[in-house]
């Protein structure tokens, strides 16, 4: 853990990507090989199963620190991170354990499923023998949620520097379902680890900020709907049928209704597309909310399969007849994709995401304005000559989204954030007018600058009317413009309405509480959205 802790401290002590890359590259050259594999795994979101739940951790830690549970919770509220709270609260170590990252994780893996006494004893022993940073990292292994400020691109760059393998190649090799406990470092780097179902890195579009005219001729671009579902990659290879989410999660089993595709797609086909819930009769996508009901479930009940069957609208073809075609121009990939889809028998839950034809940007803008009726979020623009690149690269793929819905609302409650925003009031509950009352209707916690959050924090501190644990009730005075992407009826919300992706667009210092919008205006929007 000592070497890993030194890496963590080096990464944490700088905000410069150059210094981070250098620290990581050095680590990938010199750390024990098994530790390197685990480090790649942790930084790409692959974690061992949790051996201990967080309730157990809190209780054990409070006891070991000699403080009551309520004081532990107060401390946690301030620190904003469970692993760090525990590391700070425990008394300094008396002895020192020297254990490698690999050793620590393997012993944690062995702990899963053991009786509580055995797990507790092991955790307490580690706490007693690790210095603060190592203790913090050990706790991070226990609690999950490892974030070290290392983006995927930075990781592959550092690995590329350390190994001499090209970045894009490495990015692909790190994908898939490899098991860090069984994968030697060399196998990972040489690409022997991901298995037959290994996906390609997703190509990601950037937000179009200016006008589309700046992109040149309309004819050089492929336009299509930006569907409001889950981006996915469908793999049909000999011996492997898999569906991956963009977060590199294997979701094949969540969508049994897509399984028939395995029998009909040609061997060696990889498709990038959008998974949508589909209206069984009207042959159109259902709102995202219908899909959301399915996402959280490991097994989907039959009634839901019938009411909201899944369908993929295909955007792109990455592998054709077992050959990686990502370097072909998009227009050629689309031609091949169309050919594959046309050869499929009718009735399968897979179709082409149709291109939107337009002679001018102006006519495309008119089409885009109808996106909500088509159940889309806007329009995608992709350069016809573009390759299927890895990750986010500006220039060839653009999201041209609709402007969000907006509503003016007043802050009713405030709560401190976590992590970087611990001790700063950033999580707000907003109300809108319903007759003479203010009804809480949404929460939001992003969209303002650090300076604005700091100013609001001081305001909340001096205007607290009541406390409910970490939540402060404040006078209904501060008005914000809330943006959101959609809305749906929700019996669980007091207002009867749930917003999709709510965030603060602006602090409306010019507006007072008498100028906030009404619940009726939201109800009207809901009705219009169908």
């Amino acid at each position: 853990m000592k070497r890993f802790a030194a890496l963590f401290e080096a990464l944490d002590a700088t905000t410069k990507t150059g210094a981070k890359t250098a620290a990581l590259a050095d680590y990938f050259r010199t750390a024990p090989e098994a530790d390197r594999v685990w480090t790649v795994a942790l930084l790409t979101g692959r974690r061992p199963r949790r051996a201990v739940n967080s309730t157990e951790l809190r209780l054990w830690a409070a006891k070991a620190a000699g403080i009551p549970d309520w004081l532990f919770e107060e401390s946690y509220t301030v620190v904003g991170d469970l692993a760090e709270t525990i590391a700070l609260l425990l008394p300094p170590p008396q002895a020192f354990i020297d254990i490698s990252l690999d050793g620590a994780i393997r012993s944690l893996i062995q702990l899963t499923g053991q009786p509580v006494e055995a797990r507790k004893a092991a955790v307490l022993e580690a706490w007693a023998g690790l210095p603060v940073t190592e203790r913090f990292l050990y706790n991070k292994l226990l609690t999950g949620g490892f974030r070290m400020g290392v983006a995927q691109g930075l990781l592959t760059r550092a690995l590329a520097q350390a190994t001499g393998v090209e970045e894009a190649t490495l990015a692909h090799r790190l994908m898939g379902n490899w098991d860090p406990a069984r994968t030697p470092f060399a196998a990972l780097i040489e690409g022997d680890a991901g298995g037959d179902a290994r996906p390609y890195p997703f190509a990601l579009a950037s937000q179009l900020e200016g006008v589309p005219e700046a992109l040149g001729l309309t004819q050089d671009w492929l336009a299509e709907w930006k569907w409001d579902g889950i981006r996915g990659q469908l793999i049909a290879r000999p011996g492997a049928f898999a569906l991956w989410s963009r977060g590199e999660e294997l979701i094949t089993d969540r969508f049994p209704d897509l399984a028939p595709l395995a029998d009909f797609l040609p061997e060696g086909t990889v498709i990038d597309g959008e998974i949508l819930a589909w209206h069984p009769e009207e042959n159109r996508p259902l709102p995202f909310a219908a899909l959301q009901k399915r996402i959280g479930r490991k097994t989907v009940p039959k009634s839901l399969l019938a009411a909201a069957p899944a369908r993929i609208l295909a955007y792109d073809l990455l592998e054709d007849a077992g050959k990686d075609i990502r370097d072909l121009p998009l227009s050629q990939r689309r031609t091949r994709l169309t050919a594959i889809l046309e050869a499929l028998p009718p009735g399968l839950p897979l179709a082409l995401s149709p291109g939107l034809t337009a002679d001018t940007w102006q006519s495309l803008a008119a089409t885009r304005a109808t996106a909500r009726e088509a159940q889309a979020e806007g329009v995608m623009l992709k350069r016809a000559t573009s390759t299927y690149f890895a990750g986010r690269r500006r220039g060839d793929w653009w999201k041209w989204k609709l402007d969000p819905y907006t509503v003016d609302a007043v802050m009713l409650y405030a709560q401190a954030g976590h992590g970087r925003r611990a001790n700063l009031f950033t999580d707000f509950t907003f109300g809108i007018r319903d007759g003479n009352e203010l009804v809480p209707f949404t929460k939001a916690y992003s969209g303002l600058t650090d300076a604005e959050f700091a100013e609001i924090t001081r305001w909340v501190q001096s205007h607290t009317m009541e406390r409910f644990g970490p939540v402060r009730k404040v006078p209904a005075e501060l008005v914000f413009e809330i943006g959101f992407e959609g809305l749906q009826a929700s019996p669980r919300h007091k207002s009867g309405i749930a917003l999709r992706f709510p965030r603060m667009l602006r602090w409306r210092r010019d507006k007072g509480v008498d100028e906030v919008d009404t619940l009726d205006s939201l109800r009207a929007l809901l009705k219009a959205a169908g």
Partner: protein
Amino acid sequence: MSSPVLTFTDRGIYCPPGDFYIDPWRPVPRAVITHGHSDHARHGMESYLATTQALPVIRRRLGPITAEGIPYGEARKIGGATVSFHPAGHVPGSAQIRVDVGGEVWVVSGDYKTEPDGLAEPFDPVPCHTFISECTFGLPIFRWEPQLQVMNRIAAWWAANAVLGKTSILGAYSFGKAQRLLAGLPGIGPILTHGAVEEMNGVLRDQGYPLPGTTRVTPEVTGKSHPGALVIAPPSALGSAWATRLGPSDEAFVSGWMAVRGIRRRRALGTGFVLSDHADWHGLNDAIGATGATRVFVTHGYTAPFRHWLETQGYDAGIVATQFTGDDVEPAGPEA
């Protein structure tokens, strides 16, 4: 029972029998001041009373004022109250204020720390019936390492930067923390100072506090003219054009708040050293225990949980609200 020794008003802590205020935040006729930090010694009082050691800094910061200084431990009769100052260990000249009315003794801690730092007059517990304690770091997550270890860590960082040809810039409050660093760090290279820090150095040197030699940063002074230098500057100078002008450098911030990673990252400063002029959790508890007080009021900091904690420890505990921080902590706030 007669009227209380001290009451809490919207101008600050007030002593009715002596008709004076302690660290008031609005203009009052008579102010008794714990120390020279700007959230304690404010403008606009008709008269000021502080320790002899604290007065030069207060005068420098507030300009022409009517003020008197008295030595630590000397009793001063003000109306029906007897007042004396006792070392708080926070910064040079800082004091706890003892108020005795007819044998009933209250002590106002001001800001304090229990570990001697080699420069400020070391904290001295004062027996009392009622203790009014700050609790800036009143949660058990705050546990300071011995000063020597932190100084060694800073020295190692400085030395490593020097090897790389980089200037080390330390962000530290210009009165108190900056001089504590000067007095506590080993002399492994030239030490440069920002004007705000050097001004306070001058005041303290004139008083006879032992500080090593320093060079004020002027346009001619850079990392080139002073290779391997350590620069001590107010936190606001970090990342500024003033700092950039010094050449290749590495910056770090010295504060008790650096103990929490989220706060460190919010400041977008890489390196943070955990060194505070306030007591940590154990320091607060030890100091309160040492007074023998049965009643404790807490102020400045995590007052709600700390008061609750003191109650569970058998104290009669309350909260004194302060105007400027509500009853909360502002990590970006004043000297910590």
